[in-house]
């Protein structure tokens, strides 16, 4: 990212584990997050992503392992001694303080004078476009506005790293999409590292420079959104990031003449009128058992001979007026180049 000389990572986790009693939440995790990166930790609930975030913030001590912030060991330091700030899932705004007092809080506890901190807090509020709301109480704000106050409160103390714990989870779809754009803009403007925890793969792909996919306390795969989508290395990633058709080793051998298990994205599969064989591709006969119209495309579920169901996405491009009805006999073509081998 930052040239050839080994840059100092914003965050580095070395062999970090975390157990709650008998339950292991994070297992021997190594992770490097670069300076200025928008990094997402994606995974289903219980996969350990939030725990890793809380270990970085200092809310949870790691059972073992080391946490480095900008090259410094902070493993045993309290949250208030770490140069990171967090935007909480529930925003965690202080209900007894006004918006301005909330935003100025981090400056206040650093001993900055009232007029100076109010000035900076107002500046932060302007950045999240909340001018004029400074005298309200959090209870008088909408969800999206609270979200912005939480952001302003976290960035006003100019941390090197901003941690965001599913910050958009409580917002409705429209607002969420709008906030995604604002978050991205904010990150560019501030130029600091964002670590973003989410279970929404679309959100992770949209926002991030890099994404780590978590499963059962381990990272399944780290990569750019494109790498994750195009080249999922495991069945879990293939299924969790987008939709995939998975072929087990035996299915791959019998249906696709491939030596190992692999996956293919629904939009990569073509419909063919006949069983005419293609070079470097497999053509399979099947029957449409479900046809779902989703506006920009149509999702078809096709049962191929032998009973396996394949998901196919047909883009609604101009000129392709072909109707596919339930029960119709079709042929699907899967090109070998679109197949992604899956590690066991």
């Amino acid at each position, binding site marked *: 990212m930052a040239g050839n000389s080994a840059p100092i990572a914003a965050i580095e986790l070395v062999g970090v584990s975390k157990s709650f009693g008998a339950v292991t939440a994070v297992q021997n995790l190594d992770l490097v997050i670069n300076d200025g990166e928008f990094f997402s930790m994606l995974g289903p609930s219980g996969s350990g992503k939030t725990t890793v975030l809380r270990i970085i913030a200092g809310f949870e001590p790691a059972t073992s392992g080391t946490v480095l912030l900008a090259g410094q060991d902070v493993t045993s330091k309290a949250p208030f001694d770490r140069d990171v700030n*967090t935007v909480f899932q529930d925003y*965690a705004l*202080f209900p007894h303080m006004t918006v301005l007092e909330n935003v100025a809080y981090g400056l206040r506890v650093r001993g900055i004078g009232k007029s100076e901190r109010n000035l900076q807090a107002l500046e932060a509020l302007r950045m999240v476009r909340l001018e004029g709301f400074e005298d309200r109480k959090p209870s008088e704000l909408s969800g999206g506005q609270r979200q912005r106050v939480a952001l302003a409160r976290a960035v006003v103390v100019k941390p090197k790293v901003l941690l965001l714990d599913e910050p958009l989870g409580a917002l409705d779809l429209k607002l969420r999409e709008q906030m995604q754009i604002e978050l991205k803009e904010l990150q560019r403007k501030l130029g600091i590292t964002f670590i973003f925890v989410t279970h929404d793969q679309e959100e992770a792909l949209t926002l991030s420079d890099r994404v780590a996919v978590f499963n059962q306390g381990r990272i399944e795969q780290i990569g750019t959104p494109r790498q994750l989508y195009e080249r999922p290395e495991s069945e879990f990633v293939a299924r969790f990031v987008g939709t995939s058709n998975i072929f087990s080793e035996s299915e791959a051998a019998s249906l696709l003449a491939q030596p190992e298990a692999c996956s293919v994205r629904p939009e990569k599969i073509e419909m063919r009128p006949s069983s005419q064989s293609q070079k470097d591709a497999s053509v399979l006969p099947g029957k449409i058992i479900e046809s779902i119209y989703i506006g920009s495309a149509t999702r078809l579920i096709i049962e191929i001979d032998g009973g396996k169901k394949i998901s196919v996405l047909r883009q609604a491009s101009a000129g392709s007026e072909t109707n596919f009805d339930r029960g119709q006999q079709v042929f699907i073509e899967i090109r070998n180049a679109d197949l992604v081998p899956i590690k066991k």
Partner: protein
Amino acid sequence: MDKYSALPKQGVETPALARRISTLLYSKVKLRLTLLLAAPLTWLVLVYIAALLALLVTALYSVDSYTSQIQTQLTFKNVLKVLTGQVYQTVALRTLGIALLVTIVDTLIALPIAFYMAKIASPRLQRLLVIAVLMPLWASYLVKAYAWRSVLSNEGIMQWLLRPLGLDTPGYGITATIITLGYLWLPYVILPIYAGLERVPNSLLEASGDLGAKTSTTLRLVMLPMLVPAIIAGSIFSFSLTMGDYITVNIVGGANQMLGNLVATNVGNNLPLAAAIALIPVLIMFGYLTAVRKTGALENL
């Protein structure tokens, strides 16, 4: 056969009536409310308001000093006596002082206990602690007060514990009264504060630390302001219960008397005077409640 043929008929009629009543009640909101509230309101008016008025009126009566017969000509004699009499002022101030001290002591003890219960203890331990806090409430008030009488005695455990430190038991007196009342009302103070703490999300404390506040700063700037209503709610219990108490001070208070003792002394022979004295704690509590009403603490009860 008659028996059976009568059944469906009944079965139709009764629901029809019930249905008509239901429909009526459903459409007439005010009627529904009136019926719903009639019983509790009657209770409230009779027991609370009427009782307070009766107290006020009784305070304006006088008594035949020889036969203790009540004379119902209204007079401010008793009220004036209570307002101007030195002994009443002294005892009222002492009672107020004891009530304040009990409240302060209880709050100081309750805060860390409630904090531990709500924020540190595991859910299992939390349940056990709540039971432990409530447990003393199952024992009789008198048993507990007499237990403290024996604890604080010259030959009691307190003396035995303090002797090696070169100290003596406080013995019977105001200190003993504060200790005993503090013990008696502690659960009533812990529980509202615990409930208040439960309502403070952990993320607020984490956010404060995250923004750079040391633990003490977090307690001062975030925890305490949010707990004020809960603390006031708890203080209402310890304060008002102490204001009205006369048994504990009788048992461990040595020669001291509180307002409740003056009421008890007079209730047999001079009921109007007793009523006039009883107005003092009522007025103090009324003032206190009015003052705290604005803090929202009453919603925490």
